[in-house]
């Protein structure tokens, strides 16, 4: 057993601690309640990793390192604190580009050093492969991230930019890049091959993101995350650092699966987003701000998670709920929410449904207590104003703001519920159909309204 020096032991221990903290931190994200603490642990892990590295015997001068760290912190801090919540995605992309620059630069430095033979070891085939992959993924991420940032921040148009033969060009570039990589591995000393990989990777990053619409950017960012992870892992292989390998692998796998999950949540195929971004731009999606005033839609899963954390919920059932005979499902929903400590009320509008008392009948069929009903429009509106979530199930006319706002509407003058005063509004209906009165409902395009299309049974 080759015993290690104390210093090495400390370094390795802090690397190990960092790795474990990273894993735990990511794991904490599976439970919203512990996520924040977990990520603070991950940050601590980062600190361990940095300290461990600083102890590295190979480091001869700390001056530039310290200055670099301070400068980085000074740039990063205001960037993180000032950005608005709605701009999060683009700033993640932005910050990400920085990380990728670092990875790429490290690759370049390492290659230079090793090629010059001044490092501890010379350039083996394996090392060349690692470094080549590092700059490939790193550089691709740099330009890709900047592009994503530009699209989201509307520096570049959010619409997909496509031209004829785009795919052919991309494929050729990719082929050439991989060819150069192959040459590099075959002959590690082949500097031209190395820089070809680097340059092409920069171009690839741009050309890959160009044809993808602004709405799909979160998927792209995730994918770039994954690439950055692979770059980090490659660095780890190159400099023999486990923390890099582990963090990189976590990110690589995680980013990839996350982008798959996100595209699934947007009801789009992953391949479609990445490769098939020709033709019409996607209608609307999480991060998109492009199209004006289309109703925002949401998936049942997302809604379910948001409901799980809602304290007070008001359900506004309408004729559609009766048609779907969704009263029992609705009761289940109520029980789920109540189990989590939330409170559920039903706001029954005087003319909901198609006969007087229609919804009373329907809800009493589901055994819902009279006590949970709000039958007075004013009462209901008071409760709605303080509710976390309002769920409109198959109702339309009775929540149409035009009844208050638009004198020319046939609904004008009817007392209505004001669900939009709740923090979030979910509207569950089959499609874009109108209600009994046949008029459009501006509620559906309000900012805090999320549409959940489907039969009313579907939550």
């Amino acid at each position, binding site marked *: 057993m080759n015993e290690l020096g104390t210093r090495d032991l400390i370094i390795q221990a802090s690397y190990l601690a960092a790795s474990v903290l990273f894993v735990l931190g990511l794991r904490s994200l599976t439970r919203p309640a512990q996520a924040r603490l977990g990520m603070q642990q991950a940050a601590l892990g980062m600190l361990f990793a940095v300290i461990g590295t600083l102890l590295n015997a190979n480091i001869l001068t700390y001056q530039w390192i310290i200055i670099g760290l301070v400068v980085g912190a000074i740039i990063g801090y205001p960037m993180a604190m000032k950005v608005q919540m709605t701009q999060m995605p683009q700033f993640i992309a932005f910050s990400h580009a920085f990380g990728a620059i670092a990875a790429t630069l490290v690759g370049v430095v390492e290659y230079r050093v090793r090629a010059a033979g001044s490092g501890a070891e010379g350039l083996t085939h394996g090392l060349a492969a690692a470094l080549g992959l590092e700059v490939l993924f790193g550089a691709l991420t740099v330009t890709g991230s900047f592009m994503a940032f530009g699209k989201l921040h509307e520096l570049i148009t959010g619409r997909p930019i496509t031209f004829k033969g785009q795919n052919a060009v991309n494929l050729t570039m990719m082929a050439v890049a991989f060819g150069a990589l192959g040459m590099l591995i075959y002959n590690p000393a082949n500097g031209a091959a190395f820089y070809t990989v680097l340059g092409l990777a920069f171009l690839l990053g741009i050309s890959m993101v160009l044809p993808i619409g602004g709405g799909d950017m979160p998927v792209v960012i995730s994918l770039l995350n994954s690439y950055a992870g692979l770059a980090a892992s490659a660095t780890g292989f190159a400099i023999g650092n486990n923390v890099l390998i582990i963090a990189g692998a976590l990110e690589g796998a995680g980013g990839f699966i996350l982008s798959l999950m996100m595209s699934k949540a947007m009801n789009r195929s992953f391949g479609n987003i990445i490769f098939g971004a020709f033709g019409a731009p996607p209608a609307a999606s999480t991060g998109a701000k492009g199209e004006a005033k289309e109703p925002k839609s949401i998936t049942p899963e997302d809604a379910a998670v948001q409901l799980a954390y809602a304290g007070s919920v008001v359900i506004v059932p309408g004729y559609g709920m009766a048609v779907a005979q969704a009263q029992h499902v609705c009761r289940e929903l109520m029980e789920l929410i109540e189990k989590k400590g939330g409170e559920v009320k039903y706001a*029954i*509008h*005087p*003319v*909901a449904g198609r006969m*007087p*008392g229609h*919804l*009373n*009948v329907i809800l*009493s069929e589901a*055994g819902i207590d*009279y006590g949970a*009903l709000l*039958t*007075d429009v004013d009462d209901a509106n008071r409760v709605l104003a303080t509710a976390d979530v309002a769920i409109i199930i198959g109702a339309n006319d009775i929540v149409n703001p035009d009844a208050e706002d638009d004198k020319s509407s046939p609904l004008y003058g009817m007392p209505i519920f004001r669900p939009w005063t709740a923090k979030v509004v979910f509207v569950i209906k089959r499609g874009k159909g109108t209600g009994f009165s046949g008029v459009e409902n501006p509620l559906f395009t309000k900012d805090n309204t999320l549409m959940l299309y489907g039969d009313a049974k579907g939550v």
Partner: protein
Amino acid sequence: MRIAVPRERAPRESRVALVPESVAKLVKSGATVAVETDAGLAAGFPDAQYASAGATIIPDTNALLTGADLICQVQPPSAAQAAQLPDGCALVSYWQPGGTPEALTALAGRNVRMLALERVPRITRAQSMDVLSSQATVSGYKAVLLGASALPKMLPMLTTAAGTLAPAKVFIIGAGVAGLQAIATARRLGAVVSAFDVRPAAMEQIQSLGATALKLELGGGAEGTGGYAKEQGEAQARLTQEGIAKHIAGVDLVVTTAAIPGRRAPILITEAAVRGMKTGSVIVDLAAETGGNCEFTKAGETVDVNGVQVIGPLGLPSTAAFHASQMLSRNILTFVTHITKETALNIDAADEITGAMLVQP
């Protein structure tokens, strides 16, 4: 074995002792069944159905009874009918209410063994012969319909463009078979239902139907044997009355079903209690037959006390004669099967069930 089913002659009686379905089963098991013309008509079973079930339809009562081993009917025999019966036969019917000592003497004179349906013991094995349960089911259901029809309110809550109608409050006294069915029916109609019974076990049963159980502090349980209630002490009774009076001041419809076997029904709603109720309220007293649970109850009549209607219905099962007969007939069929042994009558006074039902002079 020859079984005869006469047409019921009592007023307000529309049921029939055996429905065609049961007749068919008896015929299949080897018995001969004779049915008087139009015996089932009032209950919705025309003669044709009996005929196709294998019964002989006989217009003449005398001819019907001649040679019968067993006579099945609903109402107890009058002294006159009793005297007409063939010697040594057996008669299955209700004995109370309505059975007279004279009739009993007449029965004895003809050597007729009288088996009283209402005396089926309340043991698990005899449940399928228990006419009290089966008929009380109908009564409980009908009592609520009666009350709901008489009430100037609708039972369910309705939110309409013309305002929200509050659901009616219904209170059921006595959570026996009829009472529980009344609870269920009122709940179905959307009323807010509460109920009261002296037996502690009834509490849970009331809640098992989604109603609230009224709890009065009385002290001491009241469950007798066989699931029947026993009579309350003086003080307890007063406390009960007061508790009920307080509760029904806010109630729209009261259905009372409290009975103690073999005795006058307990008075649970006093005069003062009725006067304390809102105008337009309704009381349906299912105990009318045995004196009523309300001081104002008049059997077979509706009394108006300051705008509160007190209804004392009689013969409710007959108002749903079809289903009532169907269940009654099933009960009787099971009992007849119980007292037959290889197609012959076999009345064993030592049997737990048969013995309890034999009416001894």
